């Protein structure tokens, strides 16, 4: 029977997407939680570091002026953890279509938000990672590239899922 190659173009894109986007999501989540305040010991200092980092991220979310301060707090307290979990799931590859779809949705959301801020000439930090980074045209291009990669990876993951796995044994006639 016909069997798809383990190294075809679509699989290569899926692998690149998993590694790049998974790595970026994990880094983005960790950096929001642990940067720029990196004092981790003793425990009360770690708690203060995390509180400060989440508080700074909440202000960056609020600076987009799209949601209320209370909603910004909710986003700041959940998004970094969601990014870490989704990034790890993408790297692991378990239920790839599901998590790749989720990451694509989030990336498209990020792209829409930064594009809006850029078009409105908002003088703000993008809040993409832990350290302050001014929102510019480059931010829009970068998020656009990641969103495109996520979308292509997801489409290819669905296409490849319809084919037999390259490493499964061929059926005996």
């Amino acid at each position: 029977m016909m069997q798809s190659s383990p190294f075809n173009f679509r699989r290569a894109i899926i692998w690149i997407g998993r590694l790049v986007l998974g790595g970026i999501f994990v880094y983005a989540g960790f950096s929001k939680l642990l940067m720029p305040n990196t004092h981790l010991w003793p425990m009360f200092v770690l708690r203060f570091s995390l509180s400060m980092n989440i508080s700074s991220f909440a202000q960056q979310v609020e600076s987009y002026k799209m949601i209320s301060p209370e909603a910004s707090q909710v986003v700041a307290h959940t998004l970094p953890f969601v990014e870490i979990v989704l990034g790890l799931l993408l790297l692991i590859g378990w239920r790839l279509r599901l998590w790749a779809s989720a990451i694509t949705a989030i990336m498209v959301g990020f792209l829409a938000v930064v594009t809006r801020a850029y078009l409105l000439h908002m003088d703000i930090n993008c809040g993409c990672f832990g350290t302050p980074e001014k929102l510019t045209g480059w931010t829009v291009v970068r998020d656009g590239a990641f969103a495109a990669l996520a979308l292509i990876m997801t489409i290819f993951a669905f296409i490849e899922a319809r084919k037999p796995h390259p490493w499964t044994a061929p059926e005996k006639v």
Partner: protein
Amino acid sequence: MLFASVPPQDASGVSDVDPHKAFGSKTAPVIMEVFSDFQCPACKNLYLTTNRQLMDNYVTTGKVYLIHRDYPLAMHAYSRVAARYARAAAQLGKVEPVEQALYQNQEKWEQSGDVDGTVAAVLSPKEMVKVRELVKGGTVDAAIDKDFALGQMYRVNQTPTTVFHCKGQTYPYSGAMTYDILKQFLNQLLSQ
């Protein structure tokens, strides 16, 4: 020359303190240096909310020595101008009303650039004449530059950044903090 980049420090481990921009007891167990920019919204939040309660509950009670440091970011067109006026007013003992006016009216003067008018609204005409002289004299710039250099030594890369000193330990923290979070941290530091 080997140690030329290290500023002179007093017994508390904090250097170049302008007494006009420092509050509380020099012998307080915790010292907080706050590096801020008058045009930064997060600094405004910190000043108008957290610092008020901090002053009432920790500074006036001798637990915290609070030092205001200038860190005008290049991305803000009028923050250095505002820092000059605040420094000059500090020399006349008017730092608190001027800092408050600058933060409270931040959105107005950052649009118009009218720092002078904002400060003039809270000072007498006589005081304003002296403030303008000091601003034009250029001496306040040297003090601002010293604070900025100190901030760079602490690797300040955003405002506000607060540097806590307690029992020989230094903890630089970036970002605005709520009073509740700060209170918990200070209580832990004080109970160490």
